[in-house]
């Protein structure tokens, strides 16, 4: 069967608007061009460089522009390169928009916002919602699993005083009130104004079938008062997201295994343990071995060739 292609082709080419297509080969301008133009404009205005990075970029750019100008003044053409690069860095520092990032689809602005403020994370724990809710609702349990919280003191049915570790050994304090409490389902709280930190958060408990336990979803937000910003660095430095992830993991470990795994307090061959002195043994009381009374040989000074002890076992 013959297929007539000529007319179809002309139709698809938009009956004569070939010129426009040539101007906009990838169709970004869209049918009337409006949507496409708006998209381009948004890209240019959108900030995609993080705050700290903008400062660095701007300062470096300003420096390079100055260096470039100086070089040009002395008729060194490398000044063009420096000034050009500097101008680019300065632009992204001032406007917060980096064309290179846009082309690559990168965005460091989002990341830097999140790290200072809020986070949400979930974990599955092999316990019932009732057990988990009961543990969490007794807020005075929380310092055991929230690493950065020093103490929680429940003062009334809904209110509690919180103390967190701050920098320079000056703690951060605030009062929180529970604003929603549905047994075995959800707890939401927020801080009362006037504390060192403004905070709000929630924890949800959702049962899973097939004996798999409960999904616990927690979200937390911290906004330090400007007066306490320096002390709050300790609170925020680890990143609220990472801290929440660790806290939920500790909650899971405590509720499933009954303890949080750790190696703090174990021996090693470094630091204070690394003195090569005989350490009094905790266990040798009943043994009649004379080893424990003599200073142990320092590694490297011991033995001659071990050929005397080699060669046991079934080797061919």
């Amino acid at each position, binding site marked *: 069967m013959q297929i007539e292609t000529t007319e179809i082709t002309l139709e698809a080419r938009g009956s004569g608007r070939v010129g426009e297509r040539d101007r906009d080969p990838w169709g970004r301008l869209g049918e009337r061009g409006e949507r496409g133009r708006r998209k381009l404009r948004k890209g240019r205005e959108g900030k995609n460089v993080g705050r700290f990075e903008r400062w660095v970029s701007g300062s470096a750019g300003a420096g390079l522009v100055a260096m470039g100008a100086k070089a040009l003044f002395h008729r060194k053409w490398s000044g063009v390169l420096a000034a050009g690069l500097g101008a680019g860095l300065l632009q992204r520092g001032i406007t917060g928009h980096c064309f290179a990032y846009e082309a690559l689809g990168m965005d460091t602005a989002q990341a830097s916002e999140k790290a200072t403020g809020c986070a949400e994370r979930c974990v599955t724990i092999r316990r019932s919602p009732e057990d988990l809710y009961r543990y969490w609702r007794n807020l005075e349990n929380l310092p055991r699993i929230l690493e950065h919280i020093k103490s929680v003191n429940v003062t009334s049915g809904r209110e509690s005083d919180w103390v967190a570790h701050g920098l320079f050994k000056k703690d951060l304090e605030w009062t929180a009130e529970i604003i929603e409490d549905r047994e075995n389902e959800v707890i939401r709280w927020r801080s009362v104004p006037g504390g060192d930190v403004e905070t709000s958060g929630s924890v949800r408990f959702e049962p899973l079938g097939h004996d798999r336990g409960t999904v616990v979803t927690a979200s937390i937000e911290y906004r330090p008062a400007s007066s306490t910003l320096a002390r709050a660095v300790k609170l925020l430095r680890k990143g609220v997201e990472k801290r929440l992830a*660790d806290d939920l993991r500790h909650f899971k470990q405590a509720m499933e295994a009954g303890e949080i795994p*750790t190696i703090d307090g174990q021996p090693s061959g470094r630091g204070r*343990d690394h003195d090569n002195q005989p350490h009094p043994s905790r266990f040798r009381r009943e043994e009649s071995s004379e080893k424990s009374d003599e200073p142990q040989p320092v590694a490297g000074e011991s033995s001659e060739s071990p050929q005397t002890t080699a060669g046991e076992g079934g080797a061919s």
Partner: protein
Amino acid sequence: MKAVCWNGKHDIRVENVPDPVIINPRDAIVRVTSTAICGSDLHLYDGVIPTMEKGDILGHEFMGEVVEVGPEVKNLSPGDRVVVPFTIACGKCFFCERKLWSLCDNSNPNASMAEMLYGYSPSGLFGYSHLLGGYAGGQAEYVRVPYADVGPLRVPDGIPDEQVLFLSDILPTGYMAAENCDIQPGDTVAVWGCGPVGQFAIQSAWWLGAERVIAIDEIPERLEMAREYGKAETIDFGEEDVSERLRDMTGGLGPDACIDAVGLEAHGTSPDALYDRVKQKMMLATDRPHALRQAMYACRKGGTVSVPGVYAGFLDKVPFGAAFGKGLKIRMGQTHVHRYMQPLLDRIQGNGAPGFDPSFIITHEFPIDEAPYAYEIFKEKEKDCIKVVLKT
């Protein structure tokens, strides 16, 4: 107490350190009577495993006598003789419940670090880098055993240490490698690597019903051990082309299952092996999968490649197209030791039938002070060294 400490690449020292203490309620302290050096300890010795710190105590194959228990440990008492699995498992999480002990959720204090590299963290291990917990290991006179109500296996007096010590790691590892091959009647199993794990994989393949077992290596005494104790046919990869030889030996089909008991520090002088070494020296690749490539290439269509050999990071130039095109099953992972300890102890004891004595793989025994020398000869395969046991 004396402890074998890592102090950098090829720098092992026996240091004097404090005895361990009970830290968590489910801990126990074990006085170590025998401990072994594992082939994977050599990766630490060579400095190719990241997150080691100077002074870390090594050792994950150990056994001994319980001397102290934490308040939550009800099933062990001081005086009990135990073998301790090298993977640490809580017994209560999703993975422990399904007997996937080496994937325990709750035994790695540095889980967030492992998550960055792997997506989710496996269980903690004794003496095997901070990525996997940083736990002090058992090449020492005493060791702290977390979750002691779940891990340690009580073993009867009367059996020498040398016959039960390997329940801690390599005997279950070889067995799980063979079990993962899903061996059917008539199957031929090829094993790359005739070190201790390979030797036990050979034994296990027979136990699980293989028709033929073919062992591949280059070191004469290891090939000899595979023939004498393993009753395996052998291929010396330094002398012949492994894939061709396997094709000839299997009537043109290829082995039904291939076990890579070599892991990330494979030897070899073929172009791909040299490429691996160059990339590793230039820090562009972390693992050298020469044996794995051969196994994938040589395996018959629809067969299984079983990987107990340790891999840590990233592989390069692995023939995944061959694996896909041939529809291979690839099974791998750290051993779920807890699953196999009792059944393998039963096999060792015999209980009516002739028992199995795994101590044939031991070629050297030293007091713990000689650990630096022991690591050296084990690494260089000098003096016919195949397995070293340290006594405290």
